[in-house]
């Protein structure tokens, strides 16, 4: 019954989206202005209906209603409740429902709060949002109905992959989806502004919070995903340039570029066409990411060819939206001028440079990710991995990081290096000192070397924009920028240290044996069996000590066996110190009764994720600052309007 309610809500929401598209478009014409009043309410109700459908899905998962096909295929009555609920979006159909829900809710919020833009632009934006939603509703209802029933009802479900039974992972996909969907709102704003020829600062200000929000979620999603891969996969790697990772990185790169160009547009009325273009690209990257992940093409091009329905559907949507947007852009390009001009040495100049570099990195990641698929379609298999992506992206990332240190110090429009040169003396010296220090340590290859020295310089330079400011009166967005840029330096330092100084040790030991990894002494104290709610495990008790006279600490890595579905996983154990992490994994038992241990000492590795979180925190500061000043402006405007009204009523106007 609940499942049918969900399905009905979904169909209704789709119908309302269609209505929203029609009435929004009609509202733009002279004869259809009467329709324009219903667009906002439609957007709100549509969002609520999608939310209701999603609630229904969560309910059937929470009570494990096995007569619903999706539940039977992905859940199990013995699972902990939190994973039952998370299971609702841990599969294809559920995750697409989550997508449309978030999209509907975002549309509702835009309809409720956005009052700055001219009404026609708003109508076009909401119609655009409805158009995009409609495609996804069609996808959901026609090819991946989450509420399909199953008969006969099976006695038990198939269970959820144990690797996915992890709290971090339960909330990882929704985080990324919030990011993807935020970019869809930016896309709709870009379309709305293009249609009504209103590409200007007001459009950029309306779009900016959505881009910022999307970017914050993407940053957190990527950071959390990377940490998950690090501790869960059990080999100490944190980034693999895997297509699925790249699928989340590409929208992030585009959103980062968009964020910066939107702020140029908002404050300087420049880079109009470029900002619109990035708005389209950012959402395209979200859709390409979804296509890569959802179509099954990554497993093999042939698997995709055998069951192409879903993939083709997403590709079709991609072609319609992106093709349509680009056509519109081409038609309107003549009327969208670049806006205000500026010199190379200026804040805008630095931002343009970094935008171009980010776009180039995006190009490399996109091409490197798609090329193996192209090659396979042509009948040859190639692999593209870290040896390609690392140097190729560094080619653009290194100049970008150098400019990142200087750019925020420059003035808008036109500036001279001589004015900011003095401030950069200390970071330049830090770079030199770090360079000499790393060369003296020795054995560090080029990329980590560059990463280390740039990180040190950038860490200092990122705080320079605060140097002549009264810290109490510094606006929040400036703090946000400083924190985010510092976060980049922190993450870069962590990445470079991990790559340059990691110590690995693979050993086979008997209980009681002591082994060493880097500065650590590790003793295998005992191996004991333990049991969890849906697994059993062998647990190693390791006694570890940092240096010859450090405190002895216990670490408990496990080798787990799940029974639904039957699978083995290694639960790594991590011990964090201020200067790094010790990573321990229990492997198998050898024939001679010795146990395999995999140990890594990774200096400063947590900085990678701390840096990622700092970047996101910077985004949060900027977002709060922007929203606060928007609200203040709205309130002030309301007051002025009230006063005018009052004066008019009193007949006191001159």
């Amino acid at each position, binding site marked *: 019954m609940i499942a049918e309610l969900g399905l009905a809500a979904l169909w209704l929401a789709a119908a309302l989206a269609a209505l929203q598209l029609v009435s929004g478009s009609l509202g733009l014409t002279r004869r259809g202005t009467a329709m324009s009043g219903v667009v906002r309410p439609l957007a709100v109700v549509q969002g609520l209906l999608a939310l209701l459908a999603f609630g229904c899905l969560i309910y059937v998962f929470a009570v494990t209603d096995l007569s619903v096909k999706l539940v039977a295929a992905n859940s199990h009555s013995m699972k902990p409740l939190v994973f039952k609920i998370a299971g609702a979006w*841990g599969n294809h159909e559920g995750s697409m429902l989550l997508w449309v829900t978030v999209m509907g809710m975002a549309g509702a919020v835009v309809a409720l709060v956005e009052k700055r833009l001219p009404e026609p632009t708003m109508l076009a934006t909401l119609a655009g949002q409805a158009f995009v939603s409609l495609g996804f509703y069609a996808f959901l209802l026609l090819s991946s109905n989450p509420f399909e029933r199953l008969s006969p009802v099976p006695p038990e479900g198939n269970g959820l*992959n144990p*690797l*996915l039974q992890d709290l971090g*992972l339960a909330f990882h*996909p929704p985080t990324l989806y919030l990011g993807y969907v935020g970019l869809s709102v930016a896309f709709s704003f870009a379309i709305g502004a293009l249609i009504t020829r209103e590409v200007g600062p007001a459009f950029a200000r309306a779009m900016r919070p959505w881009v910022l929000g999307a970017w914050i979620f993407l940053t957190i999603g*990527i950071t959390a*995903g990377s940490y*998950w*891969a690090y501790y869960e*996969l*059990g*080999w*100490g*790697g944190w980034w*693999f340039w*895997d*297509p*699925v*990772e790249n*699928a*989340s990185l590409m929208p992030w790169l585009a959103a980062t570029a968009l964020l910066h160009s939107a702020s140029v547009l908002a404050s300087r009325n420049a880079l109009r066409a470029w900002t619109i273009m990035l708005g389209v690209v950012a959402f395209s990257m979200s859709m390409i990411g979804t296509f890569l*992940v959802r179509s099954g093409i*990554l*497993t093999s091009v042939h698997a995709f060819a055998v069951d192409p329905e879903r993939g083709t559907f997403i590709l079709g949507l991609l072609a319609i939206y992106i093709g349509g947007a680009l056509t519109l852009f081409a038609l309107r390009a003549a009327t969208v001028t670049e806006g205000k*001009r500026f*010199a*190379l040495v200026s804040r805008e100049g630095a931002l*343009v*440079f970094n935008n*171009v*570099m980010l*776009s*180039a990195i995006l*190009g490399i990641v996109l*091409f*490197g990710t798609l*090329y193996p698929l192209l090659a396979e379609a*042509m009948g040859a*298999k*190639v*692999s*593209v*991995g*870290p*040896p*390609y992506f690392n140097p*190729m992206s560094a*080619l*653009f990332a290194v100049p970008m990081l150098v400019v990142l240190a200087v750019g925020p110090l420059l003035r808008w429009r036109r500036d001279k290096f001589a004015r900011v040169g003095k401030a950069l003396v200390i970071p330049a010296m830090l770079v030199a000192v770090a360079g000499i220090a790393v060369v003296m340590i020795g054995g560090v290859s080029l990329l980590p070397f560059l990463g280390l020295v740039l990180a040190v310089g950038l860490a200092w330079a990122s705080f320079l924009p605060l140097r002549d400011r009264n810290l109490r009166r510094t606006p929040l967005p400036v703090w946000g920028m400083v924190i985010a840029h510092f976060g980049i330096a922190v993450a870069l330092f962590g990445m470079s240290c991990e790559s340059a100084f990691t110590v*690995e*040790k*693979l050993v*086979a030991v008997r209980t009681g044996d002591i082994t060493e990894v880097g500065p650590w002494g590790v003793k295998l104290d005992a191996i004991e069996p333990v049991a969890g709610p849906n697994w059993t495990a062998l647990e190693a008790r390791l006694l570890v000590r940092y240096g010859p006279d450090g405190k002895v600490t216990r670490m408990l890595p496990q080798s787990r*066996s799940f029974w639904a579905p*039957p699978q*083995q996983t290694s639960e790594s154990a991590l011990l964090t110190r201020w200067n790094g992490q010790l990573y321990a994994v229990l*492997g198998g*038992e050898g024939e001679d009764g010795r146990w395999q241990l*995999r140990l890594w000492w990774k200096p400063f590795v947590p900085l990678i994720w701390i840096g990622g979180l700092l970047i996101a925190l910077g985004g949060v500061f900027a977002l709060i600052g922007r929203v606060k000043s928007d609200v203040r402006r709205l309130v002030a405007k309301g007051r002025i309007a009230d006063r005018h009204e009052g004066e008019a009523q009193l007949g006191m106007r001159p």
Partner: protein
Amino acid sequence: MMRAAYSFVAGMVLALGLATGTPGMAQEERSTAPYAYRQLDDPAKEEQAQDLMETLRCLQCQGQSIADSDAPIAGSMRSLVRERIAAGEEPEAIRSWLIERYGDYVSYAPRITGLTWPLFAVPAVLVLLAFLLLRRRFGAKADEGGEA
């Protein structure tokens, strides 16, 4: 990464496809090759081997290098790499030998061939494009500024 959700799981399903019938076998499935889980005694050689292993693809998994996989074939390949490095072979020679045997797919470092040249052309084109774009944006204007 939803790496977990997709590629990795798909890989696990593929890799453990054999094991589903006999879950008890899981432990025995690990590679028993001598250097699968054992490092070389010479740290310099081990580092060479490690660098090479990180750029070789596990043929049985989904998007993992042989340096981070528990699949038996990854273990065997690790052992092969370590033994050959220990015997004094150059890493690139080992890579070529593997490519000859398993095809380009096995190496994460694409070589420049008739098939892969676009991978290297694209960054070059991007550098050029970035240069032209920046020049168009600023080059003409610097002159303008100079004149003004």
